[in-house]
């Protein structure tokens, strides 16, 4: 039997949305207050969904300890309480939550092999969220 398992994690980070290829005026027009020069922060909520056959001896799709460890190592240690604009992942990309979703999906896809990564869902605030499944 195939089941989907979802685990939720919280991290906090700051960012400023600013594209170097746009003028200051264009940046203000596109990003609004997200372009304010000193940045701002969010409490992000990340939901990681994995899937697989339920192992008949353990009753598990994968061991949560392994999933927690991978998310801690690849995502939380990297992005919790940092300025995303200064992270190597965003040297040449704007740290929108769309781009952050893709980065997190790719990091987990490459480094977590105990179950199939179905998708990630990232809430920037309680009012907006983004999903990415690799497509």
């Amino acid at each position: 039997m195939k089941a989907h398992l979802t685990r939720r994690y919280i991290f906090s980070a700051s960012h400023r949305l600013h594209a170097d290829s746009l003028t200051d005026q264009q940046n203000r027009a596109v990003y609004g207050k997200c372009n304010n020069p000193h940045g701002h922060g969010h409490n992000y909520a990340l939901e990681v969904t994995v899937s697989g056959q339920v192992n008949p001896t353990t009753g598990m799709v994968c061991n949560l300890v392994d999933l927690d460890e991978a998310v801690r190592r690849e995502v939380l240690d990297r992005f919790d309480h940092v300025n995303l604009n200064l992270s190597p992942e965003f040297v040449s990309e704007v740290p929108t939550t769309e781009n952050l979703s893709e980065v997190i999906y790719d990091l987990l896809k490459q480094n977590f092999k105990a179950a199939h990564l179905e998708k990630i869902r990232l809430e920037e605030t309680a009012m907006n969220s983004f999903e990415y499944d690799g497509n």
Partner: protein
Amino acid sequence: MVYLTRKCEFSASHYYHNPSFSEEENQRIFGKCANLNGHGHNYTLEVTVKGEVDPTTGFVVDLKDLKDILNREIIDALDHRHLNKEVPEFADQIPTTENLAIAIWQRLESKLNIATLHRVRVYELPDLFVDFYGEP
């Protein structure tokens, strides 16, 4: 096609222990969930059914009928129970959230003659849930 989801809650206790493992293996794999004295959760169950909207009632399903089936088949069987000791499915399998979602699907599928079951979602905690779609 419209999807309708009904939410309900139940509270139950369980432990994770495979008698074919050594005590050391049970501890290593299941951690504190392996404590044979058990522990409990407030589970939240979301059952999603799908179907065409009936043109005369405007319903996918009569919610009262769905609620009655959920109460009779799931809540009465699981609420304030010890899953390992009182629920037959877990006499020989471990009551993980994965297996619980599958057991709830199987109980509902045979009794839910008023709509097509689409998804069973079981929250063990607000930050941990399992979805089962009836996939083999």
